[in-house]
């Protein structure tokens, strides 16, 4: 086993532990955790069986196998970023609705308090 093997396997496991600890502490929702766990397991697999990357690259007709890894990684990142943009847009709408409801409720509450105070006097 070469130094790069040890580094890549160690790094992948370290990343997996980090993701797991985030999920455990509730800092990362399980739905996103699943994506990162799958990414991690893929990384660990190719770190352990580096020859497999060459087999897959050869199957797709890619002569330089790391290039396949980069293409897949970049495509994955783009798709995930797009997904996050959709999530942010949805949250924006939800936050807007919530802020508007709070404003209306606050106004109703203030009106009610004023009416009660007047009645007490």
């Amino acid at each position, binding site marked *: 086993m070469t130094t790069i093997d040890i580094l890549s396997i160690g790094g992948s496991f370290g990343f997996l532990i980090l993701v797991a600890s985030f999920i455990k502490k509730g800092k990362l929702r399980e739905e996103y955790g699943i994506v990162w766990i799958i990414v991690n397991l893929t990384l660990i697999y190719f770190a352990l069986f580096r020859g497999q990357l060459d087999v897959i690259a050869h199957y797709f007709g890619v002569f330089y196998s790391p290039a396949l890894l980069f293409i897949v990684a970049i495509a994955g990142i783009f798709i995930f970023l797009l997904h996050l943009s959709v999530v942010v847009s949805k949250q924006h709408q939800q*936050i*807007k609705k919530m*802020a508007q409801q709070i404003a209306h409720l606050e106004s109703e509450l203030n009106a009610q308090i004023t009416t009660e105070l007047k009645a007490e006097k």
Partner: protein
Amino acid sequence: MVRIGIIIPAYNESESIIQLVDRINQLKLNECEINYVVINDASTDQTLETLQKNKINHLNLSINLGIGGAVQTGFQWAFKNQFDYAVQMDGDGQHPPEELIKLIDAIILNGSDLIIGSRFIDKQGFQSSFFRRLGIRCISIILQLFIHQKISDPTSGYRIFNKKAINLSFKVYPDEYPEPESLVYFKLNGLKISEIPVMMNERVSGKSSISGLNSIYYMFKVSIAMFFTYFRYRK
């Protein structure tokens, strides 16, 4: 008796808001019941304190939603109170309340669902800078492609809406720089839109959010938004 609700979005308008509300209170319109609400869009100055201290009817947004979100909050208020007409009026003093009568008369008489107060029909009062007018002209041309109607002042925030328009706006209203985009939405939902000339003033205080690099972003965002609104709502 016609019941009118005036929606005044305000972001950091502590210097101008009292003056504006005083002018609204002084309006004497026959057969009209005038109500207003100031939407404090999470101002960072003393706007909220000013509204509370002077017992001005207001709704307080705890986070800044931008002009579209603030105006939509006003439409929700107008819908809840079942006003016959809702008026959108800027809190910075650009829209003289004395011009309101023109908008009310027009919407009662000509049967439109939405009437825009335009500063470019009679070309009187504050006309904005050359570059801003050029930008507005470009938006007007793009808007015409989508709604097949010429609107001389598509960015005007001085507008009056009837119940049909209020019912549409309280549910869906664009977020950022909403005026031109909302016109595409209204037109595709079958509303009759028209314009009448009004006088506008230079803002009393504060500064426009559309300046420098922001104006390029504004043009781009508004054009894209009109394009997608058209394809989202066309039948």
